[in-house]
């Protein structure tokens, strides 16, 4: 266990940090200790734009997955009364998680394309006259795919904490005259915080580290940090890819550090 993590988690990261100081020619990389890569990275306005874009994706996706995930988890935990149905519906939500992400991305294309289902339906209803161009290969489709892929990471932890809320607490709230809305905001949401936090950590880190969804759903027209890295890799510019990776890693760790301040994961399992 420790060995695997050491050789395939710690070592690679150390390696990335080392290589991020190396130099590169067009064909090869050579060991060195220089800050060129970082200088270039921080000197370029593209970097800031791309990082900003990454945060934007993470934030919007987070907001959507939180609302959808919370609602779904609430429905499963409180509105469904029998355990058998709860498990069945829960599994119904989890099954797509076990199928291929790539396929799930591809499957949006016939849906959103210029002659896709969404456009032709809207046209036949008379809502629009011309196909909407922004449905596919845009920020919209990227975020749609993120929400589609990652909402589950929100549903599962929130559902988990909800199932452990003592039902007597909610009854108590009702007995004291709280409306359904009040018991939701004053009892359920505070008690779900750990689940919400874990879901948040998952969603933000997955979105921030992603490159394939962005590349695919934007038709290579949008960028986030992951794509910056993968572009460098394609050009064999490993040192500059590593430098970007280090910055990304630090950013992600800061975000997680902030979130972890708010919850102790280990206690919540």
């Amino acid at each position, binding site marked *: 266990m420790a060995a695997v993590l050491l050789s*395939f988690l710690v070592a690679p990261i150390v390696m990335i940090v080392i290589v991020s100081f190396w130099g590169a020619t067009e064909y090869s990389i050579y060991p060195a200790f220089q800050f060129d890569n970082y200088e270039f990275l921080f000197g370029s306005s593209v970097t800031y734009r791309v990082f900003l874009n990454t945060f934007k994706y993470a934030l919007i996706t987070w907001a959507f997955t939180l609302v959808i995930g919370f609602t779904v988890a609430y429905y499963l935990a409180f509105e469904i009364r029998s355990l058998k149905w709860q498990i069945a519906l829960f599994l119904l939500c989890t099954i797509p998680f076990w*199928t291929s992400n790539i396929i799930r991305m591809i499957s949006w294309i016939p849906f959103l394309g210029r002659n896709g289902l969404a456009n032709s339906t809207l046209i036949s209803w008379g809502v629009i006259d011309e196909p909407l161009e922004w449905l596919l290969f845009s920020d919209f489709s990227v975020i749609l795919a993120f929400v589609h892929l990652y909402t589950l990471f929100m549903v599962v932890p929130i559902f988990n904490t909800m199932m452990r809320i003592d039902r007597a607490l909610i009854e108590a709230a009702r007995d004291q005259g709280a409306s359904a809305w009040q018991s939701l905001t004053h009892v359920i949401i505070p008690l779900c915080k750990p689940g919400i936090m874990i879901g948040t950590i998952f969603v933000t880190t997955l979105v921030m580290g*992603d490159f394939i969804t962005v590349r695919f759903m934007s038709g290579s027209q949008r960028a986030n940090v992951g794509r910056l890295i993968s572009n460098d890799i394609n050009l064999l510019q490993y040192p500059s890819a590593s430098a970007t*990776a280090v910055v990304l890693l630090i950013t992600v760790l800061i975000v997680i550090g902030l979130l972890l301040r708010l919850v102790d994961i280990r206690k919540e399992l």
Partner: protein
Amino acid sequence: MEKRSRSFYLLSAFFGLFVLFLYGPILTIGILSFQGPEGGLTFPMRGASLYWFYDLFEEQAVGDIWGSFRRSLALGLMVMVTTVVVSVLGGLAFRKKFAGSSLLFYLCIASLVIPSILISLGVGLIFNQIGLPVHWASSGFGSQLTWTLPFGLLIMFAVFNRFDKSYEEAARDQGATAWQTFAHVVLPIIAPSLIGVALFGFTLSYDEFARTLLTAGSYNTLPLEIFGMTTNVTTPVIFALGTLTTVFSFCIIGVFFLAVWLFSRRKDHSSDAGQGMV
């Protein structure tokens, strides 16, 4: 049946939409994969046929679908076995505090949340610099473990947190050795959750993309192959492939659920496999 409030129906509708949102696109490509031979990547359907499925079995202009499928399958099984064994051992070890246990725990969490492209890049670089060839069964295998192991371990934590220690004590009082206690008491109790861990290990590996990208070497796994196809194949053959692998995934999930169900039926007490998944 008691009367339900209006919010129940509203939320049911919402849930229905959510499920549609989850499954709708997959169904679309499922339908589109039966396009007639002249059909394109979107609707309308031009006839219905199995043409593209046949086409899948023919020689392809690009790539080696069946080879990559076999590799993905083999890799998935390797990752599955390793994940199950290591996470059980890890779960057992973590029941007691040991030196470095919390460090190791945070490493696991870190491993889950670190962007997967970093693992891919780092492992690729190491193999590159040492001079080892990257291969799906060595570097690819290792980088996938950084994703499946923490999942498995977290599930085992959840299981052992709910585990009643008095069963073990009872076994020990009756004179069972440590191994007998494990094999005859602990293992049967956690078995349904182990099936869950196995399912995670296999499917996560089978579908893994980013971590394998730079570590698979010259032989692609299936997700890499599919991704390659998306950039240069413009016929519904890709939908046919997508449908087939999705059906395959569903079959695997079905097999695992069947196993859980059989296990929990054999025993009297109810299974906690559902909770174990979390």
